[in-house]
């Protein structure tokens, strides 16, 4: 019985390039969607805000955590 991996390995350069493209594209797609889902939940859980405030929270590692009321006063 033929082994699919060996067929691919013995295949043309096109097949190798194609398989790498398919794997990378699919992996990137799944990864980006899962990452985005987490980001949406973090932003919406802490209340939608302006892009600047969200990026500020991201930088400080406080995104998704309850807002600090004193920070608003400042």
């Amino acid at each position, binding site marked *: 019985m033929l082994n699919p991996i060996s067929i691919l390995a013995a295949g043309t350069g096109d097949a190798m390039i194609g398989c790498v493209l398919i794997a990378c594209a*699919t992996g990137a797609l799944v990864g980006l969607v899962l990452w985005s889902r987490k980001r*949406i939940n973090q932003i919406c859980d802490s209340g939608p805000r*302006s892009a600047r405030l969200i990026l500020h929270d991201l930088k400080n590692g406080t995104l998704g955590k309850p807002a600090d009321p004193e920070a608003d006063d400042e």
Partner: protein
Amino acid sequence: MSSPQTGVQEELSRDLNLFHITMMGLGMMIGAGVFVGIGMCSHSSGGGGLMVTFALNGLIALFSALSFAELASAIPRAGGTYNFARIAFGRPASFIAGWMEWLAASAAGGFYALVLMQTVFKFCVEFEWIDSVADGGWMGMDWRVRVFALGAVLVFVLINFRGSSETGKLGAIFTVGQMLFVVAIGIAGAVQFFLDPSRIENFQPFLGSGDWIGLLGTMGVIYVAFEGFEVIAQAGDETIDPRRNIPKAILYSVLIVTLTYLLVAFGTLVGLSMSDTDPATGQTLSQATNGAGENVAAWIGSHGHEGDSGFQAAVSVLLKGWGGLLVTLAVIFSATSALNATIYSATRAGYALGRDRMLPKAFSNIHPVTKTPWFSLLCTAGLILGVAAMLMIKDAGATASIMFLMLFLLVNVCVIRVRRHMGDELQYGFLMPLFPLFPILAILLQLGLAFGIFEESIVAWFVGVGWLVAGVGIFLFYSRSRAIQTEEEIHVFHEERHKQATAKGYNVMVALANPENALQLAQVTHRLCRPRKDTHVELIHMVPVPAQTPLDAAEEFMWAGREAIMESMLYLAMQNPISTTIRYCRSAARGIVTAVRQKKIKLLILGWHGKKSHSHFTIGSTVDPVMETAPCNILTLKNCGQNRKFKRILVPLAGGPNSRFTLETAAILASHDGGTVDILTVDTGRASKFDAEAFLAMHQSKLPIDPHAVSARKVPGSNIVETILDTAEEYDLVVMGNTHESRLQRMTHTPIPETIAERCDKPFIMCRSAKGIRRWLRRFI
């Protein structure tokens, strides 16, 4: 917002959740595009090229989807691309966006109509109902296919004019059906592969007779199968928690579609072997390709015009004959729903341009009866008919692809502009990572795909560029001077923060439809609420707006409802605390059920004119679904107005789950007028489990009425309906429980309570209790 004149609250019915809007996107994406695309791609780029095409197209679509998700989370309102372009760049860009969207949706509509009819004709040939489908007649296609495609367009234009379209639930069922079908094909093929791994050789030669440059063109043409997620951004006004759910739905739909396409493409290719027999010809695949060393991908691509019916042929072989029928049904379902959706999508694009006076005002004219933008629909019909009459399937798909690519390109530019210039003003529910890498990548890749289409369909480029040039001309010489200049000409409904109704009080909702009905509902509500001091009455009027018309145009249709609400308010205001709401929705039934859930309603009161609106419904198209799904007690009133006294009330009972609630309702009404209640059972001579005397004895002490005023009565009769109707002549009111038969049972016959409700001349109230396991479960489903 609330009206300054009346204090009546106006709201949008936000009744679409994450599942609904994800299904909406999937329904637009999974369709004829993939069914035709698999064959066309196999023809030009081989089996491996097919897989690469779907994977890369999915990733490119995701880059644009990230931009849509970010913009839709920051600007969660109806309008989509048109709105984004207006906010980012102002009038000229929004005109171009609307103009391109109009052709994109229309070209897609023409494409779906042609695919639909070609599939039907191929199916007829397979079953030998017609001899053959001849390519090369009228503009390269069999004239019958074109004629029937034009007929299909006209039929769906008429359906759209009537304002009807698939409801969310039905659309979701179709979409799930299509998904299951394509996943089943993928799994069937994958099973073949695991049984015989050597089938991986079907991917050799990897790119068939094509090359990597040619693959770019194929990707461009097939990109139409990845458009559709943008409709989710249009649902901002109707979605629950839009800042969270819309971006998620956009991204999920692209992910699900790409994985599904990859699975079905893989399954189709490895599911076949060159030694398999084609049931259509009786030859092996190898014989069919003349044994010239051809492979499965080449065989698939050899069907139809440039492989456009290859998938159908492949599934026929894979599923041994049944495949052809299944694919035909799947294509009919998907192309039908996509054709319908593209017509109303294009109509809305034309309407938006007319409303903002960038096209003549007639485009925004709404038909007073059907509530649809009829002139825009007429012009859209002309455009779709033009595409279906003049272009080949491939050219129609490529035209739609080019226009969507340009639209997506514009959105990617908009997302950069909006974040840079308005990032501090807007509230975002999602920010994409590595900004602005993905929008720039999307712009470059989509430009590449658009140029790639030039190789595959030069006609599409001519049509697309010609349309854009015409658009620029119209804007410069017509729209620029006439467009409404105010910044906020697009009416925006604010995100309402629903006041959480208290679960402790007795919340009663009265659904008002028209002024004639309003007073009778108010009068009965007044009587029913009297015994309870903690009652809060919510008067609600749903304004259903067809999908073809944006919700922001709904104000034109709310006057009858406002009148009804005012009349009821005047009647009830002295007795109970009242709040009043007008809600704009796509489906009155869904809107009412959503409102019941949100406002924690205990009792819902509906009116019924007494005639069935459609033979498919036991009572009516609104009352039936509300009765089935609303998680509260429901009373449906017929002919109860004019402040009648209910001195004698008849309560026919048979021991169903609504019996107690029915008796309580009758007792409350009778006690108000000092009347009596008779529980009626019909003695048909057959043994009955229900004992009215025992039932009365069990509940009598809990009824808000003198025990002597309630009695049980047994009347002999062979026909239950006729006996009850005859007995009802002696009474002032009939109160009866709703049927507890399943929907399947009700399809075969009209249940007894509904038959009596329709035929009874006396005032009638139908009761449905919220109790019962099935109804309890429905609260959570």
